[in-house]
């Protein structure tokens, strides 16, 4: 197994990880290693073809991809060594990490580690939902990746569970592509998401929202044929036929690689969490800002 030595190991090359590289470099570190499990840096930004990024940091209305590109260019000029297609499997107390990737298995010994691994989406399987488990059900993030990066179609006659920003943006993407979004299901009495998205998605595209409702059942053998929707006020249930179900029911910081490090009362003094793996940010500019703050604490 290869062994690499570095001053700083940064895990994840999304908005947070890329800005963390710049912060560390500014602080004067010269040996910086950035590990990213995907083919290129960018993170979730790369699947965002819509605008609404960078108003804070660049004072421009960029797409996610454009925002990522600006940082990728800065990254190219930096001294950081970037390992793409390499996943950090595990961090250890003795300041080493185990990495797996196209080059095989690598051990990294480091002084400090910044975890910028983003978040994963909650799934409908974790909710008390009855019925069958057919195909045609996925999270909005997966759908967005399939549509915008792989350029694939996911299906039609869509119901979306959850009205947060991600759900609304994916709904708009789908409608623009000529797909039918039959309903968005929301348990609260108002839709979620930023005002901006409510205006530009829900209102602008007249997306039907069913407030104070939940999905309690899934129907269909083979591909999904419909969902059972419960109205929280009346407790009445209705069958809503659909052929695709997307979910946008929240994000959970992804910190698996840290394992036991997180068990103590406080984090080790050489370990930092930043971006969506610290807490879930609505706006990328605040991710970038948080990462730049690392300069003063590193």
């Amino acid at each position, binding site marked *: 197994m290869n062994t690499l030595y570095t001053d700083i190991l940064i895990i994840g090359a999304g908005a947070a990880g890329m800005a963390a590289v710049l912060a560390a470099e500014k602080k004067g570190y010269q040996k910086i290693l950035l590990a990213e499990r995907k083919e290129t840096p960018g993170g979730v930004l790369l699947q965002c073809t819509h605008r609404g990024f960078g108003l804070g940091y660049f004072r421009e209305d960029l797409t996610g991809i454009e925002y990522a590109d600006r940082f990728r260019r800065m990254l190219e000029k930096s001294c950081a060594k970037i390992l793409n297609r390499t996943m950090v499997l595990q961090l250890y107390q003795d300041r080493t990490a185990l990495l797996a990737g196209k080059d095989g298995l690598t051990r990294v010994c480091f002084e400090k580690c910044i975890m910028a691994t983003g978040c994963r989406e909650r799934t409908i399987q974790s909710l008390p939902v009855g019925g069958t*488990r057919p195909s045609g059900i996925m999270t909005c993030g997966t759908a967005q990746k399939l549509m915008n990066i792989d350029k694939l*179609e996911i299906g039609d006659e869509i119901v979306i569970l959850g009205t947060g920003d991600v759900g609304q943006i994916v709904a708009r993407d789908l409608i623009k592509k000529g797909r039918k979004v039959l309903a968005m299901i929301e348990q609260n009495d108002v839709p979620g998401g930023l005002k901006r998205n409510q205006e530009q998605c829900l209102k602008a595209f007249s997306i039907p929202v069913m407030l104070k409702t939940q999905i309690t059942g899934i129907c*269909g*053998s083979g591909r999904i044929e419909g969902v059972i929707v419960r109205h929280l006020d009346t407790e009445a249930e209705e069958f809503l036929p659909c052929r695709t179900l997307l979910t946008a029911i929240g994000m959970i910081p992804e910190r698996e690689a840290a394992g036991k490090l997180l068990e103590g009362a406080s984090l080790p003094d050489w370990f930092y969490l930043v971006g969506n793996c610290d807490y879930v940010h609505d706006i990328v500019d605040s991710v970038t800002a948080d990462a730049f703050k690392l300069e003063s604490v590193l």
Partner: protein
Amino acid sequence: MKRTSDVLIIGAGILGCFAARSLSRYALEINVIEKREDVCCGITKANTGIIYRGYDQHPGSLKAALCKKASDHFPSLCEELDIPYRKTGLLMLSFGPRADRVFQKKMEQGKENNIPDIQILDESQVYQMEPLLCDGIRSALYAENTYTVNPWEMGIAAYENAMSNQVHFYFGQEAMRIARMDTGFLVETKDHTYTASRLICCAGLTADTVWEMLSKPSVKILPLAADYLVFDRSVGDSISHVISVEPEEKGDGITLVPTVDGNILAGPTRRSIKDPAHCTAAASGCCTAAPGSETAADVGGILELQQKCQKLIPSLSPSMIIRSFGAVRPNPYYAEPDGTLSQKSINDFQILEEDGFFALIGIKTPGITCADELGRYLAQRLIGSLEHKPPLNPSFSPSRKGILRLSDLLRDDPGLTANLPQSAPADYFEIICRCEHISKGEVLEAIRRGATTIDGIKRRTGAGMGRCQGGYCMEKILHLLKEQTGKDVYEITKDGPGSEILIKL
């Protein structure tokens, strides 16, 4: 097309696969037909997966005999077929006098069944073994030699071994009509006919229907439903034994299983399958599989399990649930020729035989435990029914190797000096499933071994079983399946025709 063999097996669940493997010890032509796209998609994929010791089987029954033998031999079977398993032991908990009395009876039954390795533990011993259990436990019946397993992994192991011993499996082949001929049987599927001198029905939930394609009703299956929950691996060490409650009141029972993958499986509930006619979805007429139909989970059942789990282990929060699913029990009843059914469901294993037609009908718990023994038993009876005992299969090998797992290698040897496959070692470090650390090499090997669907890969590698439930790996696996099978990405399914993952307009 016509396919001829000495033996034809209908159904490739765990029982069909082990029956095929047992028979492959003999120089016989064996065909297996399965209506689904893969093995182990029926009852075998959704059950509790406990290898029972068999102390509480009715003394003198076939179940008691087979279960003890099976549990004695289980570690060596797993060695032979390279099946991952976990020796957990089983703690059956008592919260009151009724359970204490039941335990006394079970101890005696254990003696009668020649199972001396069970004991009653007192309260302090139980809490020492399982410190997170709730208060109020009086005692426990402990069966040390209890194991847990992924049942489909067992079935797949038997399938692969049977194949390497020249058994042929045909998928997408539903037996629709059976006729008796001078020389044996003729079975028709939608596009093929099969002939064989001996016929075995291992058709799980529809075994009775298949039996009645040729013979008079004898045993009928009235299915009963069940629900399960799966907890995240991060709370997997909340228990280290199978925990089961002997309830003071009917319906209060529950079982928690530490799985091979390090999760906790909770269940099963016990409920009738709702008449689909009463269901909102079916009533509207637009849906073929509504909640309440077979294999559908029930919200009520899921919530009931959540509550029971948290009562039993207060620290086990419902927020750690990663999945729930439904299951179906093949409950057998005796049927009179006029169609009336016996009052009580049949407890012992039913193996029907009529002039060369054998059937396993309504094999419920402990069918996983006894799969190998049932296969051997069936093979013996079938061989005994032949005019001439066939010679042994000269090339039979009882062993099979499972797919090498990166996560196992890392657990055993984080320095990873172990022997990786020479062919494409780089594949073994490209992670496809982020939650379970399953590599591209494993997925490619699963495809090589016959997986054609997302679920087929999940059952063979575990990819998609973790907390993100395929959110990360599904897309990667789609591409690998496309590349390897040459299929269009829009043809790739979750679990067979009609379950396409992506739909192009």
